[in-house]
């Protein structure tokens, strides 16, 4: 119950944390920092995927569209046609822009976290010791990149270092994604529509859903897996073992 309100209880607090980070809302009804590490892993993970988990709500919509484009590109070839999505061919330009989105997301979160862990100003931030302190840093940049607003609030964020790096993370997280996505939209709008036939890659139904999830997990999430392993995952394992910091 540490960091939770009685009237919300642990169940609803967990649900709220998941929803708020899945939908780029950012409101909180409990302190995510004091969740058990796996509890903190979920919101962290949601934001690192680009806040697309419930299927892309609000700003997350373009995030999931980028993953859809990448999924179509990776697996679309397996139906024996060059990839197309929503009746438009996915070509080098779209791929470049989609990769730019994935790359800026990963860059903003990982690079700034790396800077924070490597500098004295960054290391001064975390409240908690051990892997949880690392989670706090990671959460800060994940949330700021995702323009989410929730926080592992133990981190002392109101310092020159965190304000400066955080502002860049926010800028990157918003505009380094929106601009390439607008570019994709423009380029796809100008393209010749490809007629649908039996040979068209199906972007509905369970296979597509499974494929999309697979691509999100492998391309989106595995990028952050090493960092998460050093943060919440090992934190939870240590918690289970009863080690304290």
């Amino acid at each position, binding site marked *: 119950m540490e960091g*939770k*309100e*009685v009237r919300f209880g642990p169940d*609803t607090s967990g649900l709220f944390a998941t929803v708020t980070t899945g939908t780029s809302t950012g409101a909180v009804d409990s*302190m995510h920092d004091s969740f058990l590490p796996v509890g903190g892993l979920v919101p962290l993970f949601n934001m690192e995927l680009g806040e697309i988990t419930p299927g892309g709500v609000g700003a997350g919509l373009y995030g999931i569209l980028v993953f859809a484009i990448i999924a179509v590109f990776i697996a679309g070839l397996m139906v024996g046609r060059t990839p197309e999505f929503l009746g438009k061919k996915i070509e080098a330009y779209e791929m470049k822009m989609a990769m730019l989105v994935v790359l800026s997301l990963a860059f903003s979160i990982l690079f700034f976290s790396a800077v924070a862990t490597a500098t004295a100003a960054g290391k001064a931030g975390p*409240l*908690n010791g051990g892997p*949880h302190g690392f989670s706090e840093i990671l959460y800060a940049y994940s949330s700021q990149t995702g323009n989410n607003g929730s926080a592992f609030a*133990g981190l002392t964020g109101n310092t020159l270092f965190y304000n400066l790096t955080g502002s860049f993370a926010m800028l990157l997280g918003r505009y380094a994604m929106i601009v390439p996505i607008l570019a994709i939209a423009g380029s796809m709008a100008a393209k010749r529509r490809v007629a649908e036939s039996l040979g068209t890659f199906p972007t509905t139904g369970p296979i597509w859903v499974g494929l999309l999830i697979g691509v999100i997990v492998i391309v989106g999430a595995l990028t952050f897996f090493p960092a998460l392993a050093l943060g919440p995952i090992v934190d939870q394992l240590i918690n289970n073992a009863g080690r304290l910091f």
Partner: protein
Amino acid sequence: MRTFIKGQLWPAVAILLAFTVITGFAYPAVVTAVAQIAFPGQANGSMIVVDGQTVGSSLIGQSFDDPKYFSGRPSAAGAGYDPTLSGGSNLASTSQALIDRISAQVDALRKANGDAPIPVDLVTASASGLDPDISPAAAEYQVARVAKARGMTEDQVRAVVARHTSQPFLGFIGAASVHVLQLNLDLDGLLR
């Protein structure tokens, strides 16, 4: 250049202006008006007024140290229940500081209430530091102490507690809770 101004710049500026008016002025005004007319109580802070005097908000907890009052949860807001410094402890489950704080809290509670198992919300700080509620178990844990301090029977106290216990929304969203401030006011006979 002309087409850029006419085709892209002007629409962008026009939309900016339009939305400044709509979302900056019109929308807040409408929402404020609706709130003040339809929900004046909630809109002004859900205040609890006793004999014409505002004693608190039903949404913000207060600190009670006297044994004859039910006490709320530990608070990490400032020195405790400081509404200008709302916040949680943010301590992690693997934090030595958290374990130390909880141990101290446990000792204090044992001293005041005896050796019964302590409900978890009484040793953990809330998210806001201003949690107005405690769990029914936490209320039950304090019933004996409050009854003794007030010279009431435990059942009398329990009856008051029951009046201020709310069930989860729709039965499953959230958790059952006991409102500390209203409970204490009621015990003092100030609520009608």
